[in-house]
C-alpha cells in the first residue's frame, strides 16, 4: 500500500463518513501524487463532494484521517488547512458577492501573505500595489478584466466559477481541489478553463478535480478514481479506467 509514499502529497487514509444511517464514504484510501492531476468521477450522490469536505475540514470523518504534506489535517480548522496550502473551488461558487471582482481576487492574496489574521486597519488598500498588480494580471489571464470593478454577485454563473478559480490561484496553493469547475460554463469558457488548468500543471501544482464532463477529465487527468456509492470502485490511468468494465457498468455505461 505504501509503495510510492515519497511522492504522495495527499493521503486520505481509510476514511469513513456516515450521515445518520447513510454511508456517504466507506473505506476510502486515496493517495494523490505530487504535481499530478487526479480526477474523481462518479454518479450523482457518489460522495465526491463529501470527500473534498472531509479534506478541507468542513466535515469531520467518522473514521480515518487525512494527511497532507506530512501533516494530519483531520481536526484542523478550515482556515488552518488553507494556510498549509490547500485551496478549494466549490460546487456552488463561494465568492464575496458584495465585493468587487478585483477585491474578490485580492483578498486571498492577503491571507497568503499575512497569515490568518493581521491587524492592519490603519494601512491603506491603495498602497497594496503588488497584490493589486497580481490580481489584475490574474483577471487578465482568465478574461475578467473588463468586469473588475463590478460587484462579483452580478457576474454570470460561469464567470463566478472562473473568478473563484482565480481566487484560489492567487494563493499559489500546493494542492488545488476543484469541485466541478466547468459546470454551467459555455463550451468556449470550458476550453479556456482547461487551458488555464493545463498551464498550472506545468507549474507543478497538485490538483484533485471532480468533473462530470468527460472531455475535461480526459484532457486533464493523469489518474482517475471512480467513486460509486461511497466506495472507490476503480482507479488508474485514463486509458485503464475507460476500458474497465466495472466502470462502464457503474458510470460511463449509463452516460452512453
Amino acid at each position, binding site marked *: 500500500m505504501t509503495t510510492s509514499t515519497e511522492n504522495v502529497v495527499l493521503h486520505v487514509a481509510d476514511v469513513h463518513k456516515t450521515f445518520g444511517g447513510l454511508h456517504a464514504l466507506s473505506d476510502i484510501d486515496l493517495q494523490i501524487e505530487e504535481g499530478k492531476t487526479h480526477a474523481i468521477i462518479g454518479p450523482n450522490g457518489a460522495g465526491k463532494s463529501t470527500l473534498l469536505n472531509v479534506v478541507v475540514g468542513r466535515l469531520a470523518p467518522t473514521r480515518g484521517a487525512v494527511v497532507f504534506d506530512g501533516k494530519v489535517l483531520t481536526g484542523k480548522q478550515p482556515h488552518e488547512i488553507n494556510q498549509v496550502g490547500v485551496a478549494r473551488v466549490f460546487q456552488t461558487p463561494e465568492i464575496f458577492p458584495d465585493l468587487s471582482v478585483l477585491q474578490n481576487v485580492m*483578498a486571498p492574496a492577503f491571507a497568503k501573505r499575512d497569515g490568518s489574521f493581521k491587524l*492592519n486597519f490603519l494601512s491603506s488598500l491603495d498602497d497594496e500595489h503588488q497584490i493589486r498588480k497580481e490580481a489584475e494580471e490574474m483577471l487578465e489571464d482568465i478574461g475578467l478584466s473588463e468586469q473588475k470593478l463590478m460587484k462579483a454577485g452580478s457576474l454570470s454563473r460561469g464567470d463566478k466559477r472562473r473568478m473563484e478559480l482565480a481566487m484560489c490561484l492567487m494563493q499559489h496553493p500546493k494542492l488545488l481541489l476543484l469541485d466541478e469547475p466547468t459546470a454551467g460554463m459555455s463550451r468556449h469558457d470550458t476550453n479556456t478553463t482547461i487551458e488555464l488548468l493545463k498551464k498550472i500543471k506545468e507549474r507543478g501544482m497538485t490538483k484533485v478535480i471532480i468533473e462530470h464532463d468527460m472531455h475535461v477529465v480526459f484532457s486533464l487527468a493523469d489518474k482517475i478514481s471512480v467513486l460509486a456509492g461511497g466506495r472507490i470502485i476503480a482507479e488508474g490511468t485514463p486509458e485503464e479506467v475507460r476500458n474497465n468494465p466495472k466502470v462502464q457498468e457503474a458510470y460511463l455505461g449509463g452516460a452512453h
Partner: protein
Amino acid sequence: MNFQGIFSMSRKDLTTLVIFSIVVLALPIWLQPFGAAYPDLMQKFAIFGILAIGFNILFGLTGYLSFGHAAFLGVGSYTAVWTFKLFSMNPIPALIFAVILSGLFALLIGYVSLRRSGIYFSILTLAFAQMSYNLAYSVLTPITNGETGLQLEAGDPRVLDSMFVAEEAGLPVSNFFGIEMSGIPGFYFCAIFLILGFFITQRIFASPFGMMLRGIKSNQTRMNYTGFNTRPYTLTAFVISGMYAGLAGGLMAVTDPLAGAERMQWTASGEIVLMTILGGVGTLVGPVIGAWLIKYFENIFSSFNESVLHNLFGFLPDGVEGFVVELTSMFVGEGWHLTLGLVFVLVVTFLPGGMMEGYRRITTLFTGGGGDGDKKAKADDTQTQPAE
C-alpha cells in the same frame, strides 16, 4: 506599517474628511435657521455621531448586529464620572479610562457573543446589556449609585486636582486646562472627537482590514476557506466599536458629569441601531446623518405638548380641533417614539439603504439619468479606485 502610510489617503477620502470637518465645525452657524443651534443639542449631535459611526464599524462592515451597544456607552459614562471623582476634572484622563474600560468590557462580551452569529449573536449582546443594566441598578449600587445615578460630590478626593488647583466652593465643572466643558466650548471639544473618530473610520474602511470585515459580511464561509481566521477580525471590530461607544459615553459625562443606568437600557441600544439604519448602514457619513436626524426630531417632537398643538390647530373649528389635537398628540411629546417607529418602518420598507440610498437615487435621477444597469452593478464607492 510605515508612518507615512497612516496619513496617506485617497483624494476622495481627503475631500470627504475636509467637507465633513467643515460641516461639523460650522454646526453652530448652519443649524441656526433650523432653530437647533444651541449647545446642548449640538453636543448630542457630536456624541451620538461618534456612537453611530463606531457602531457602523461593527454592523456596517461585518454585518454583526449588536443589540447591546448601550452597555459600552454606560461603562464609558460611569468610568468618566469615577475618574472625575477620584483624579481630576480634566476630561482627558476621564476619556482615556472610559475608552480603555469599555474596550475591555467589549472584549469580554464580544468574546462570548461572537461564538454565535445572526440572530443568536444579537440576542446574546442584548442579554449582556440588559444584565449590565440590571446589575447597575442592583448589586453594583456601590459603584453606580443605583437609581439616583453617579454624581460628583463635594467630598470627592480628586487627587490630581487637589495637588494643583485650589479647592473651590460648590461642585466643580469638567474643564480642559481651564476651559469649561459646557456650552459652545463643550460642543467643540466633542466635535474634535467626532472628526477624529470619522478619520479613523475612513482609515478602517479603506484598509485591507476593512476589506476583510466586508468579506466576513459577504461570505464568512469563503473567508474561512481562503485562510482567514474570522473570529479575531470580528472581535477586533467589536472592541473598536465598543471603544467608540465608550468614548461617546465618556463625552456625555464630560459635558454633564452624571451617569445613570438608563443609559444602558435596551431602548438606548435600539436607538443606535435605528440611527445607523436610518442614515445608511455601511456608508461613511450615513450613520452620522441618521444620528443627527433622530436627535433633531426627537428634540422638536418631544417638546410639543397639548397647548402647543392647540395653538397650532387653533384655526380649525372646535370639534375638529379637539380631534386633531388628540390624534397628533399621540405622536409628539412622550409619543415621539411612535413617530420614530413609523419613520423607521417607512425607511426600511421603501429605502432599505437609508438616507444615503435616497441621496444616491436622487443624484442618479438628476445626473446621468440614463441609469444603465451597469452603473448599478458597480461595487459601492468605498472600493479601491483604479491606480492613477
